[in-house]
């Protein structure tokens, strides 16, 4: 979707202002939220649904929200949509913890489950897939153009590269296609290409700086230039 999350080239957002140091998590709720990703996926969701849930936040919520607040909201909206939890029980429990902010979580836990989750983090969960399309449509050095598409759902084809021409620098294997996977319409693996764009192609010859941008694109996003 043409959402506010698609930030490449936007202006007016202020300084980066990196702090000298920061903790991995600033507080208890950030820790808890980070640790809910595997339970979320095991409840039947996937990484692309996770990302699209964040993209669907209202732009103001997106731009004012703390980072893990985005995670909380995509967990909530996806799990409610899937029927894993209901709005009502979420609101009831929220009310409960608002009134009892210091109440601890239900104690204990299953050591085997915790171990299993750690192993998932250690092993990773690659979205690289075998592809039946053995011959890549494009090769290294080919000039390609990003299609002018504006899907209303999730896509990894950013607005700032659409319609732009670049050169393939790398041909990767196939990966799960976000546009369909986010809708639970199948993994539809497709090859990914790394494409090099000149900044003049992206931002015009009047851009104050000159550089290259390297952007990974799934085959369905591309056409021959």
């Amino acid at each position: 979707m043409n959402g506010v999350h698609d930030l490449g080239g936007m202006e007016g957002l202020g300084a980066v202002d990196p702090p000298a140091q920061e903790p991995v998590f600033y507080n208890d709720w950030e820790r808890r939220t980070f640790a809910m990703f595997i339970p979320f996926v095991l409840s039947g969701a996937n990484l692309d649904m996770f990302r699209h849930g964040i993209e669907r936040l209202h732009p103001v919520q997106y731009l004012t929200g703390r980072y893990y607040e985005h995670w909380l909201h995509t967990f909530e909206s996806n799990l409610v949509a899937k029927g894993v939890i209901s709005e009502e029980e979420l609101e009831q429990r929220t009310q409960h913890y608002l009134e009892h902010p210091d109440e601890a979580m239900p104690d204990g836990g299953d050591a085997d489950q915790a171990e299993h989750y750690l192993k998932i983090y250690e092993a990773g969960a690659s979205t690289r897939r075998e592809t039946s399309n053995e011959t890549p449509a494009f090769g290294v050095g080919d000039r390609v153009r990003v299609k002018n598409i504006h899907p209303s759902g999730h896509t990894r084809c950013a607005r700032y590269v659409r319609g732009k021409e670049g050169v393939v620098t790398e041909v990767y294997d196939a990966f799960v296609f976000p546009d369909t996977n986010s809708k639970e319409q199948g993994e539809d693996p497709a090859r990914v290409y790394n494409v090099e764009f000149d900044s003049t192609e992206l931002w015009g010859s009047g851009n104050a700086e000159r550089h290259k941008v390297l952007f990974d694109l799934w085959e369905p996003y591309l056409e021959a230039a």
Partner: protein
Amino acid sequence: MTTTESGSPAPVSGTFPVTDEEIAARVKALESLLIDKGVTSELAVDKIAEMYEREVGPHLGAAVVARAWTDPEFKQRLLDDATEACREMGIGGMQGEDMVVIENTGDVHNAIVCTLCSCYPWPTLGLPPNWYKAPAYRARMVKEPRTVLREEFGVDLPEQTEIRIWDTSAEVRYWVLPQRPPGTEDMTEEQLRELVSRDSMIGVGLVAAPA
């Protein structure tokens, strides 16, 4: 459209940012529901959080860099297949299933960004800093990287240095092999690790020569 107290229509209802109290309560509410469903526990939360607080972090990427600086064959393997080379050192996992390392040289400076969200190579760099995930860096880094590097990170690159910005838009996770600074010829791999900063592996910092 909603209206404010004075009657003027406002395009969005609600007050932003949401309060910390509400966020904290909503997180507990959701976690408690997932505990009820049997898919998480306090123990799992602690174990997972501690893994990224104590074990996984940029010291791992620094170890890889130090080895690449001191072992030319390892460096070649790293540039050929970073995932496999890191695995030799027992480094890998979530958000690093397919890693690619790009080398900074005297002529070319590389840096990473994720304009669409916050993709980042967790196994070698740990969880990303907040500025990497926030709008300003993501918006500006693909259009005016030289200015961002100079004004925000104090990295003033020579005009002739080519800047290459890797927008991590798919599932390959890029990170940077920074240049080894001069004056470090006599340092051991262990000593070199200490020099390598997280920022230098993102590409928003350089590795400084030891004082």
